[in-house]
């Protein structure tokens, strides 16, 4: 029984009031001890750090928030791991990252290449959007990886970043991963790679 995952889900449920649809099913999966121990390898998130919201059938928006900014890589890897973990918890096999693009964005669109090399994941294409507040800010500002502008924290003293939030929209899939799609991420492989690298932001 996936006690650890169930525990984490309950914690999130209590802290954020957001449902953890399907967690009970995953928790009841037979022989799920290995998955539980894997999830336990990552420290539990504090209240308000992680949230997931349903956007419809198999679609979710995952958000990671914090106040002590370390690096972009740290936060985005944690969000990617949560995406993989959610996929596995739902007994799905892979997720597709949905890019949040706007008019005027300059970053090239990643194209599928059925004749090219195939991948289980390409971390470069996991590109969440960010919101942040600097010291003294009342309102959130946003930054998009597709805008062509430098990352908002580049060159800044991390202590001046009082709030940050990265979010990713994903769609879960059960069948075999579409390995020609640059936005496809096989959950098991992503989780395996990141599980020793991530911890929730403070």
């Amino acid at each position, binding site marked *: 029984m996936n006690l650890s995952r169930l525990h984490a889900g309950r914690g999130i449920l209590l802290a954020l009031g957001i449902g953890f649809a399907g967690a009970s099913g995953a928790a009841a999966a037979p*022989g799920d*001890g290995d998955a539980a121990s894997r999830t336990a390898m990552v420290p539990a998130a504090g209240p308000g750090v992680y949230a997931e919201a349903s956007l419809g059938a198999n679609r979710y928006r995952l958000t990671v928030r914090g106040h002590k900014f370390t690096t972009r890589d740290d936060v985005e890897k944690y969000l990617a791991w949560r995406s993989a973990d959610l996929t596995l918890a739902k007994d799905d096999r892979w997720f597709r990252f949905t890019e949040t693009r706007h008019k005027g964005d300059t970053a090239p669109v990643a194209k599928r290449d059925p004749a090219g090399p195939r991948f289980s994941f390409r971390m470069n294409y996991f590109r969440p959007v960010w919101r942040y507040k600097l010291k003294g800010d009342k309102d959130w500002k946003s930054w998009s990886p597709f805008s062509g502008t430098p990352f908002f924290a580049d060159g800044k003293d991390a202590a001046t970043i009082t709030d940050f939030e990265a979010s990713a929209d994903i769609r879960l899939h059960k069948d075999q*991963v579409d390995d020609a799609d640059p936005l496809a991420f096989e959950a*098991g*492989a992503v989780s395996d*790679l990141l599980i*020793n690298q991530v911890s929730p932001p403070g």
Partner: protein
Amino acid sequence: MRLQNIPLIVALAGLACAGNPAAAAPWSRGFVVATYEYAFRYGGRASFTRAGEIEPGVDCPHGSSTHFANENQTRKALALQKWRGPEEVNRIVQPPGLDQVRAPVLTRFFIWNRAVSYRGYRHGIETYVNPFAADDPGEPEVVSRIGDGFNLDGKVGPRDFVSPDGEKGIDNALYRAWGCDAPWRGNGNATLDLRANDKMQEGLYTMIIRVSGNKDPMNDDDAVVEIGYSPDKIVKDARSNVAPDYSYRILKTAEYTRLKARVRNGVVETEQVSEMHTPRIAWFYDQTGDADFHQGKIRLKIAADGSASGLLGGYRDWRDLYVEEAFAQDGGQQGVREHEDHVALYYAMKRNADGMYDPATHQYLGISTAFRITAMPAYVVDPDKPMDIPILTAEADRKAAFEAIRAATIKSVTTLTPQDVPPGTSEAAVPSMEREITDLPSKDYFLKTLDRPHYPDKTALNSPVQARSR
């Protein structure tokens, strides 16, 4: 009435016997396997290349894999490690002073071997023992629809192949995952196919098959197929072909399976069994052992001259396939030499896995496979006394090192806890790199910068095993 019909019954019985003269006669046919390869269907033309591609074809539109084939490919692999700065990548790709050494190609080869053996998410994680800890470098996959193999699951899935005879639902996910891998792709000339077959024919191991029944050898619905290991080395003729009609003992060991079969017009098709044990492909003694197919079966077509060809198939634990391929020597050496990347092969198998579902991890631990064999007629006999597979004592240390690195790798990918390289292997070009860069002006940089395995006894060079030329 009954008495009056006796002559008619006798006459009919006589006619039946005349039409099937071999009925009820015990028969047996033996074979020694002459070639044993992955059943990958080649779709290219050896004479055709495009810039940066090797033999593009309908199987692999951009040709065979080109990992580490040149400076650009190696640079691409090393750039995935964010902890490695651009200067380090440049120095590895083009070692300074390389033009001043006696064997520049070999020197660079071992530097690349050492460097690509450490591509984990941080310094010090050896990649081939811990493939899960490296980014997926990507692997070209087979895109054509035609493939050899069996319908192992009885279903016709969207990613299944169609056999050359038109049978749908062929499960050979290993072909999709590895069919473009350079050393296994070719039209009878794939380098590791040639190497493995050459070693088998030279006596590394012998696989034999015995088909027996009680009816007609060409049509028998109650036949038996036995497959296993023979302690007798393959006999070759003066032209270096596997010679027909020699005798081989079959050992009923861990690499032996007996299957029920049916023979129709000379085509032998076995039942599908939950476990099928046979010798596995190997080109070094350390790799030899049980292939361990799940839901395995065999199909053999017997030719008029007594030879046979066919397929073995079933689901295999893809972690076993990974280990057997990666650690024949060491992952970096084989990768750089053969233009394959075992990290890419690891991920390709993991995502194409389609059998042996493990509810504990929600993952498929098996991948459907098929192996192509050709066999020569032989006399397959039982040994006078039961015996086990002989142990090659001269290679016992290497075998032990292989089993140790296998165990470390299985542990790492199962627990996701990075494991050290066990002593006794040549993993990460130890001590080859130290030996080869002695006259390189920039050797101190590489000795200081590149990770390498460290062993409890603190010896710079490993056991004598590693110093041995392979």
